[in-house]
């Protein structure tokens, strides 16, 4: 009964999404207040029914209803409750429902909080969000129904992929999707702006907090995925440049560029067409990611069960949405002109270069990810483009970006860099370089060029960010949310850079074969296998080892790596034993039983790795603080808009 209700509410949601789109867009075109109001009500209705549908699926999982095919494929009776809920979004169909729920939530929020927008514009935004909702709901109802019945019902299910039975990975999709889907709001704002032929820049102010909110969710989502991969996948890697990972990173880069471009547009009415294009691009990359993960055109560890038929639907949807937006852009954007100017070392200039580097990085990742497909389609053979390529080329735009980042924050709007700032920056830069050379030599015993550059850039960015705060405090200037957010986020970038440089330069991995009582040394740490035992978990059996780690005779910790065999079958899973320290992680993972009491183990020393995710959290925090800057919460009369409106030749 409940699954059928879930299916039914999904159909109702689709009907309401159609109503939302038709009444909102139609009402805006005809200036019909009643229709526009109906469109807004439809948003609420759509949210209610999608939420009910999601609740129905969750209920089916929690109640272990194996008569539903999706439930039977992705969970079983021994699965703990928390993971039964997480299994709702564990595979293709359920994750689409999560997408739809995410979109319904964002649409509801955008509708509720946009009271200060003028009505036709607001309705267009809602209408465009409705069109996107239609696409996903239709996709589910025609090709990927999560409520399909299994007849006869299974007595027990397959199980949720053991890899996904983990807290971080369970919450990773909801947060990630809030990010992906959140860019739809910026996209809708951009399309509404283009549709109306608005020439002012007020929409930039409205769009910015929404973009920041989506972007910070995406930041956390990506960081969670990376952290999870590190402790779960057993060999201590934290980024693999897998197509699906790239598919999440590209919208992030576009979103970062968008936030910065919005700053200029909001402040000075400049770069309007770039900003609109970036808003379209960010969400387009989210949709592209959805396509790449589910269509089978690329090989990925993360891919959902791929199906070209579903791929065709998504591609059609993608073409309609993105193609439509880009045609709209081509039609309307040329009319957006502004005559304002700025000087060479002004903040606008730095932000422009910043975005040039971000977009270059984005382009590189896109090209590298799709190149095998391009070559295959042109019958030029099959190649692979993997981490060795990406790791190398990503540095090309990133190093200049980090260098300029530190300067740009200190640049004033319109005018060039003041001499006071220049001296300050030289001091910080010099210090960063010296400290990085000294630290490299003293702490790690060697100086390497790339490592030195990495550390220097990290310290440079961190120092420069703090200097902004110091300068403001000294001058007794207020520190608005936007400035504090910027400082924290940029500081976070420096922290992540520190972590990445540290771990990539100085990590040590060792594969050993040990019997109980034997030890191995990794980077002054002594890892001794002291015990092995069998352990029983809620839905698995495991072998657990005790690995005593000591340094200079003193015990540091005992690690407990496990090798698990889940009752539902499948491959054995490794749970690494990790000890987190202030400056390093110690890592031990069990491999195979080699016989005669010996086991293979992978031991690792990972300096500074935690800073990667700490930095990401700071970035997200900065974004959050900036999003709640007081000025976004005021009913804003944009004086920039007034100036622009006066100077331009009028609307439409």
């Amino acid at each position, binding site marked *: 009964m409940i699954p059928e209700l879930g299916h039914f509410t999904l159909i109702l949601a689709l009907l309401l999404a159609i109503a939302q789109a038709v009444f909102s867009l139609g009402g805006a075109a005809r200036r019909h207040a009643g229709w526009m109001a109906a469109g807004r009500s439809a948003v609420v209705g759509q949210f209610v029914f999608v939420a009910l549908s999601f609740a129905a699926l969750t209920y089916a999982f929690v109640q272990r209803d194996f008569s539903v095919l999706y439930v039977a494929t992705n969970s079983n009776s021994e699965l703990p409750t928390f993971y039964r809920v997480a299994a709702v979004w564990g595979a293709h169909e359920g994750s689409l429902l999560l997408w739809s729920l995410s979109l319904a939530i964002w649409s509801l929020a955008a509708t509720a909080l946009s009271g200060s927008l003028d009505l036709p514009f607001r309705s267009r935004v809602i209408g465009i969000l409705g069109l996107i909702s239609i696409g996903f709901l239709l996709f589910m109802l025609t090709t990927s129904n999560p409520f399909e019945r299994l007849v006869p019902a299974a007595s027990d299910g397959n199980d949720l992929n053991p*890899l996904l039975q983990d807290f971080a990975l369970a919450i990773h999709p909801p947060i990630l999707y809030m990010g992906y889907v959140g860019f739809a709001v910026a996209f809708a704002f951009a399309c509404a702006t283009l549709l109306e032929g608005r020439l002012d820049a007020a929409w930039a102010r409205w769009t910015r907090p929404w973009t920041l909110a989506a972007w910070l969710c995406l930041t956390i989502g990506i960081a969670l995925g990376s952290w999870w991969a590190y402790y779960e*996948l*057993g*060999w201590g890697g934290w980024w*693999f440049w897998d197509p699906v990972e790239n598919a999440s990173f590209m919208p992030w880069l576009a979103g970062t560029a968008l936030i910065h471009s919005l700053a200029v547009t909001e*402040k*000075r009415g*400049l770069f309007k067409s770039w900003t609109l294009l970036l808003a379209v691009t960010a969400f387009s990359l989210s949709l592209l990611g959805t396509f790449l993960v589910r269509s089978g055109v690329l*090989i990925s*560890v993360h891919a959902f069960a791929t199906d070209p038929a579903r791929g065709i639907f998504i591609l059609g949807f993608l073409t309609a949405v993105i193609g439509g937006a880009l045609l709209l852009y081509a039609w309307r954007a040329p009319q957006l002109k502004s*005559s*304002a*100017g*700025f*000087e*060479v070392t002004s903040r606008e*200039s730095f932000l422009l*270069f910043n975005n*040039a580097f971000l977009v*270059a990085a984005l*382009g*590189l990742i896109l090209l*590298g990810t799709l*190149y095998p497909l391009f*070559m295959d389609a042109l019958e030029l053979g*099959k*190649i*692979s*483009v*993997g*981490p*060795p*390529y990406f790791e190398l*080329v990503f540095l*090309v*735009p990133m190093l*200049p970006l980090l260098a300029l980042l530190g300067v740009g924050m200190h640049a004033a*709007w*319109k*005018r060039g860099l003041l001499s006071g700032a220049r001296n300050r920056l030289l001091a910080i830069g010099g210090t960063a370089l010296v400290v990085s050379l000294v630290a490299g030599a003293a702490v790690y015993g060697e100086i390497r060029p790339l490592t030195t550059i990495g550390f220097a850039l990290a310290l440079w960015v961190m120092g420069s960010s703090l200097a902004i705060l110091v300068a403001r405090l000294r001058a007794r200037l207020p520190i*608005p949310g*936007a*400035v504090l957010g910027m400082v924290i986020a940029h500081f976070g970038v420096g922290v992540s850079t520190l972590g990445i440089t540290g771990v990539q330069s100085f990590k040590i*991995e*060792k*594969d*050993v074969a040990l019997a109980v009582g034997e030890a191995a040394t990794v980077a002054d740490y002594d890892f001794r296998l002291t015990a092995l035992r069998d352990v029983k978990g809620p839905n698995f059996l495991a072998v657990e080892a005790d690995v005593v780690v000591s340094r200079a005779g003193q015990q540091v910790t005992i690690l407990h790596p496990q090798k698990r065999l889940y009752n539902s079958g499948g*491959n*054995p*899973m*490794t749970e690494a034993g990790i000890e987190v320290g202030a400056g390093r992680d110690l890592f031990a*993972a*069990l*491999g195979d039983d080699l016989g005669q009491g010996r086991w*293979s*183990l*992978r031991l690792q020393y990972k300096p500074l790795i935690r800073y990667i995710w700490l930095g990401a959290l700071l970035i997200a925090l900065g974004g959050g603080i900036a999003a709640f800057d007081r000025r976004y919460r005021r009913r804003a009369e944009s*004086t*920039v808009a007034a*100036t622009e409106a006066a100077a331009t030749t009028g609307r439409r």
Partner: protein
Amino acid sequence: MRFAVLIGGLLLAAQALAIDTGGAFEDPAEQERYERLIRDLRCLVCQNQSIADSNATLASDLRREVRELMIAGQSDDQIRVFMTDRYGDFVLYRPPVKPRTWLLWSAPVLLLLGGIGIAVFVVARRVRAAQANPAALDEEPEQR
């Protein structure tokens, strides 16, 4: 016929560890070279992993080949040729530099220069605008 089915019983052990118990090379530089080589080679039966990261039988067989070729004194290029002779360019995670990959390998510099070029062009235009009308800059109210 779905590719995945054809692999039969080979373990697609994405989760299990790829641990070499052959022992590390005596010379740390050789060990580093070995680790670099196995990271550059793709595990063909896996869903996007290098032979360093995969515990599939084929991956450990290929690691063994790399090790033996290194001991036999083969250079990095010779080892890569050994692999591509048998499996084609697909087995290399670092794409070879050939005419068909020139675009891929020149992209970093091209995109960087292109981006900088466009930025310089735009900045130049805006600087001219500022110089042409310096008073206008002061008229705009400061927002922060």
